[in-house]
């Protein structure tokens, strides 16, 4: 049996769709498989942050790489996905949190991330609507936010235009490896390729387990809210040390914010925000921006991402199966990385290497192995 494709991509989130495009642009024969519609889970219903600020140092090289692609989205996929460079402001609400911001400045310098530490006096002068509990902030001017509902679908459409096969309503249930080729079967159709990319988010854990390298991935359903439109005044995308609230306003006027976790059942899949984190998010949002008190929230939502114990994704080759490359478990902060992950996966497949250090993301950092 010979290969029908060069690469099978499992999962149509941001990473998978970006990989499909980057591979197709270099002439690879690609088939992508998505259980529902592309960008339906974590990739499509996340907060929309395009943030490098405050990332784990291991992720910064990917974030820097991805940020270059964010700047080129219009030429790459025909839309900027409403990406706006508003800057990202990470806030401290105590001296201890401020010290953490100060410590991160060295990390930012090491990775050439433009970052400005702003003390108590200047932060309130610069953003007078910030609440009194805010004592300091770290401002990353290159960061911003985008519309997550557009990104993965636009990547998928561009990939399709570049020749990739995008299969929606195509769940990956039967996949096997014979030592040389992966065979994926849906009904009476089969696809065969020497390479498979596992970009299945939370469900990437099932693929890894099937190939004998289970990892401790858990479902993560971030609890998010959006307000009615009010006059635009909050320019920067904002987070806090510790991450217990995040908040931004889009130019249309809606304030998008979140805190805590909703509930989910990945087997359905089904997810739902919960009232307690919703109310907590409100209280914390008022703490950051008191002026939001009394503004109406019109919707809350969540989706399912894969959460790893150390908060870092699994990226890189399988240790059990040649040709299998993982990229999943982005632990609630993969939206910004998606475009870059796709480019990096394309390099791993077509060049056998990438400049971005992937060692921290290796799958065998977890000891579960084939015991699961």
């Amino acid at each position, binding site marked *: 049996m010979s290969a029908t494709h060069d690469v099978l991509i499992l999962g149509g989130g941001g990473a998978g769709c970006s990989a499909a495009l980057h591979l197709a642009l270099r002439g690879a024969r690609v088939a992508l498989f998505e259980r529902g519609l592309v960008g339906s889970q974590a990739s499509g219903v996340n907060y929309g942050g395009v943030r490098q600020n405050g990332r784990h140092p291991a992720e910064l090289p990917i974030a820097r790489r991805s940020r270059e692609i964010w700047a080129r989205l219009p030429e790459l996929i025909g839309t900027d996905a409403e990406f706006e460079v508003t800057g990202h402001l990470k806030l401290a609400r105590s001296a201890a949190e401020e010290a953490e911001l100060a410590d991160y400045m060295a990390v930012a310098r090491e990775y050439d991330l433009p970052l400005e530490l702003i003390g108590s006096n200047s932060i309130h002068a610069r953003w007078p609507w910030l609440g009194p509990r805010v004592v300091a902030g770290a401002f990353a001017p290159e960061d911003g936010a985008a519309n997550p509902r557009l990104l993965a679908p636009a990547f998928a459409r561009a990939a399709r235009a570049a020749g990739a096969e995008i299969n929606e309503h195509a769940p990956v249930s039967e996949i096997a490896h014979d030592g040389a080729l992966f065979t994926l079967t849906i009904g009476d159709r089969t696809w065969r390729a020497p390479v498979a990319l596992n970009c299945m988010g939370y469900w990437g854990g099932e693929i890894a387990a099937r190939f004998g390298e289970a990892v401790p991935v858990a479902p993560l359903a971030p609890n998010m809210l959006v307000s009615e439109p*009010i006059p635009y005044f909050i320019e920067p995308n904002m987070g806090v040390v510790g991450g217990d609230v995040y908040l931004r306003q889009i130019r249309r006027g809606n304030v998008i914010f979140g805190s805590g976790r909703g509930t989910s059942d990945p087997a359905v899949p089904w997810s739902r925000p919960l009232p307690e984190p919703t109310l907590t998010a409100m209280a914390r949002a008022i703490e950051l921006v008191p002026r939001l*008190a*009394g*503004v109406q929230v*019109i919707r809350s939502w969540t989706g399912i991402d894969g959460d790893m114990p150390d908060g870092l994704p699994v990226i890189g080759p399988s240790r059990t199966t040649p040709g299998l490359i993982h990229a999943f478990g982005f632990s609630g902060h993969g939206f910004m990385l998606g475009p870059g992950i796709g480019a990096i996966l394309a390099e791993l497949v077509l060049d056998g290497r990438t400049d971005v250090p992937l060692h921290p993301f290796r799958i065998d950092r977890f000891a579960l192995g084939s015991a699961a």
Partner: protein
Amino acid sequence: MRLVRRADAERARIPFTLDGAAAEALAGDTLLTAILATADHLRTSEFGDGRRAGFCWMGACQDCLVWVEGLGRVRACTTQLEPGMAVRRA
């Protein structure tokens, strides 16, 4: 547009302010009635397509939210006017 009182007009008059200007309505009026009995619109669409004056009058369409001092954003059609309310349309 202007609402026309057709019944129950013999009620106590209640003062309030609309965008800072003194106004008057009747006890028992909702904010929507109070505003549209004295003014020709209730809010302006955020997206440049003009003025609005509510729509469903039953708390469903959410197209009649106004600012009331001390209360924040309030749905005019289901909120009773209270004496002295300071209402802002923008």
